[in-house]
C-alpha cells in the first residue's frame, strides 16, 4: 500500500459503533462467556453426580459473593444472547430490517434481557 495515511472505514478506535453493531459484537462475546460458563456448570453437575459429600464441599462457593456474581453474570449473558438471538431469527426469515425497527428491537432485546434476569433473580430469592 503506497498511501498508508488513507483513512480506512470503519475505523474502530474512532468510529462510534451504532447500537446494532455494539449488540452484534456483544452477541459473540456473550456466546464465548456462555461456553466457558457451561464448562463450570457441567463441572458442578459432574461433582453432584460424583457424591453428596463432594457436592456439599463446593456448595458454599455457590452462595458466596463470587458465586453469586458468576451466576448473575451468566444469567444476564444467557438472556442477552437469547433475546438478541431471537432478533437474529426474525432477520433470518426476512423481518425487521428497517433502520428504525432495527434500533427498536435492539433496545427491546436489552430491556427483555434485563427483565428476564430480574425475574429469574426474584424467583431464586423467593424459593
Amino acid at each position, binding site marked *: 500500500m503506497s498511501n498508508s495515511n488513507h483513512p480506512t472505514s470503519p475505523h474502530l478506535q474512532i468510529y462510534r459503533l451504532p447500537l446494532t453493531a455494539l449488540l452484534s459484537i456483544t452477541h*459473540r462475546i456473550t*456466546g*464465548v462467556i*456462555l*461456553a466457558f460458563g*457451561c*464448562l463450570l456448570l*457441567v463441572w458442578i*453437575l*459432574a461433582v*453432584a*453426580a460424583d457424591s*453428596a459429600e463432594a*457436592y*456439599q464441599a463446593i*456448595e458454599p462457593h*455457590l*452462595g458466596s459473593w463470587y458465586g453469586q456474581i458468576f451466576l448473575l453474570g451468566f*444469567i444476564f449473558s*444467557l*438472556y442477552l444472547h*437469547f433475546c438478541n*438471538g*431471537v432478533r*437474529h*431469527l426474525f432477520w*433470518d426469515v426476512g423481518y425487521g430490517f428497517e433502520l428504525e425497527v432495527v434500533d427498536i428491537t435492539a433496545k427491546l432485546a436489552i430491556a427483555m434481557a434485563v427483565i*428476564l434476569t430480574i*425475574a*429469574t*433473580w426474584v*424467583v*431464586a430469592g*423467593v*424459593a
Partner: protein
Amino acid sequence: MTDFRSPLSRVKGLGSAKDGTSHFWRQRLTSLLMIPLVLWIGFSLAALPVDHATLTGWIQQTWVTIALILLIIVTFYHAQLGLQVIIEDYVSSHSRRTVILLLSNLACLLLGTIGVVSVLKISFGA
C-alpha cells in the same frame, strides 16, 4: 465477469466450504430448540433450593432427565458451531486455526458427554 465454476458446482450450490448453508441451518435449528429449553432451565433452577438432595431428586424425574440431556446435547452442539465461526473469523494463521478448531470441537464433545453421563448417573441413582 467470467464464471469459472462448473455447471455441476453451481447446481449443487455448496460453495468453497463444501457444505453450503448447512452450518447456518444447524445453528438456527439448535437455537430454535433452545428457546423453550433455556426458559425452562433458567426458571426451574432458580425456583429450586441448591442442596444436593433437592437437586438430584429433581433431576431423577424422568421428564427432567430427558429434557436436561436434550438441552446439554443441543447446547454444546450450538456452542461448537458458534465457537467455530468466531475462531474462523479471528484466527488467520491456517495451522493455528486448525489446531484451535480441533481443540474447541473436542472440548464441546467432551463437556457434552460429561454432562449427559452425569445426568444419567444421577437419574439412575448411582
